[in-house]
């Protein structure tokens, strides 16, 4: 028995080695690069430079917060309504909601330019109605729209999973105790769905706060977000890796903090939320 256990534990050895080298060591690499200069000498200069990116961090957080909230407002009713229809149609709609996630997000984002541009579909349509072209592209609204669009499935999925698992007898109990449907939603369904909401929020916030493509394409490169800053520095070449590393490290800490807060809402196991 002991021998067997040892044997089955041993098969995970390649993974442990892999995880140590390619998951754990890179995090230390980031710390190493953050606190050294190009020649590998200890320095705090990279950390000092972070002040220059204060605005980028602020903007990224602000935009990510706004788009996370909007995503939540759109996704929650959707997930809720989905649980109310026939099981077979639920599966189909779930598939349809998730499917765009597997599409190249660069192209999905880029297609919005075709829709929003000054000569794009919406403005052509407005022009035919005799209305002047609206400035839709390269605005903050377009960036938020892109984020909401790209990450909406990440919010719908966990909320739907949690909602569809709610024990029907709980709802019947609420009915029996005299709740009307609004009270039932507020007192029973919503509290029970909080773990799903929490993981939805992290799953939308994290990619939103770190994106660089959406901001460049739909925001017109007018302002620099955190993701843009990292990408920009990376492209400047090895001399700028240290600063890029410092920004990434701060971004990671920020994300970890956000996740620690969210985890307090979603205790318990949630193995099934990832499709």
């Amino acid at each position, binding site marked *: 028995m002991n021998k067997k256990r040892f044997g089955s534990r041993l098969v995970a050895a390649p993974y442990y080695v892999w995880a140590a080298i*390619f998951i754990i060591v890179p*995090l230390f690499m980031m710390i190493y690069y953050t606190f050294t200069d190009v020649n590998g000498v200890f320095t705090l200069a990279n950390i000092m430079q972070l002040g220059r990116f204060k605005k980028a961090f602020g903007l990224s957080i602000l935009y990510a917060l706004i788009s996370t909230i909007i995503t939540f407002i759109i996704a929650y009713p959707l997930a809720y309504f989905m649980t109310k229809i026939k099981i077979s149609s639920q599966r189909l709609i779930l598939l349809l909601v998730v499917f765009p996630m597997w599409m*190249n997000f660069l192209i*999905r984002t880029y297609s919005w330019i075709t829709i929003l541009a000054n000569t794009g579909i919406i403005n052509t349509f407005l022009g035919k109605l005799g209305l002047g072209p609206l400035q839709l592209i390269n605005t903050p609204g377009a960036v938020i729209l892109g984020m909401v669009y790209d990450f909406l499935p990440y919010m719908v999925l966990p909320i739907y999973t949690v909602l569809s698992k709610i024990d029907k007898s709980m709802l019947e109990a609420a009915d029996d105790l005299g709740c009307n449907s609004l009270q039932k939603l507020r007192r029973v369904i919503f509290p029970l769905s909080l773990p799903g909401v929490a993981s939805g929020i992290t799953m939308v916030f994290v990619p939103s706060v770190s994106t*660089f493509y959406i901001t460049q394409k739909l925001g017109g490169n007018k302002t620099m977000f955190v993701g843009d800053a990292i990408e920009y520095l*990376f492209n400047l070449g090895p001399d700028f*890796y240290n600063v890029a590393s410092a920004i990434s490290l701060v*971004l990671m800490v920020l994300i970890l903090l956000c996740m620690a807060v969210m985890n307090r809402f979603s205790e318990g196991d949630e193995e099934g939320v990832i499709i």
Partner: protein
Amino acid sequence: MKIFSKIYIALILLFLYAPIAVMVLFSFNSSGSVWVFENFSLDWYKELLFNTSMLNALKHTIIIAVLSAIISTVVGTAASVGILALRKKVTKSLVMSATNIPLMNADIVTGISLMLLFVFFGKLLGLHESLGFITVLVAHITFNLPYVILSVMPKLKQTDSSLSEAALDLGCTPLQAFFKAVLPSISSGIFSGFIMAFTLSLDDFVISYFTCGHYQTLPIVIYNMTKKTVTPDAYALSTIIFVVIFVLLILYNTVQNKSSVKEAAKI
């Protein structure tokens, strides 16, 4: 209420699919514009056949996706077996937290941190070019592994441990017991892990962007195209990928359905 909820669902689906419809539509445009639709044509699909940089990138993408999916499925399945056999709870949760890091972290952070690792060791080894085929492959395996583990592990937990014990009692070696008794009951988890790894790898842009060097995959080429003006060939290519992934996803879902039907039948 019923009607309202149906309208709501329909509107969201419209929102989700509008850009995709636009993409498909303009991939059939006869002119090079992605603004004005002129006539229906298949020119851009024909054009793709002669676009060597794109075809090369497609080859790279498929090589990376196949290799990384196979390797991460094998390593990840073995890892799931080993992690479940761990006796100490602390070690187990430690391993699982490490496994979750690539899942939780922003792609850009994962990409940058791996890139720093590769560059650092590339410099140590005196390599002229530290980023390339091997580094993208390693990066893809790394972000695929957690997904494989998370889809195999629940299935493994569900399997009756007496199954492999019975096999051992009947004279199987541990390896035989695994392949004959355990593997068939977790095969749907392994398969969905593989499909997930494959599609994730196919679609990854951010992590590849920082780790690929000159070994450009398709999303990188698409990114470079969208930097300048996009012609409908990028749309044509994406339409093709859209169809391929759609088929894969249908396949994945039928397998999942079948296995859940089987499980229901067992009970």
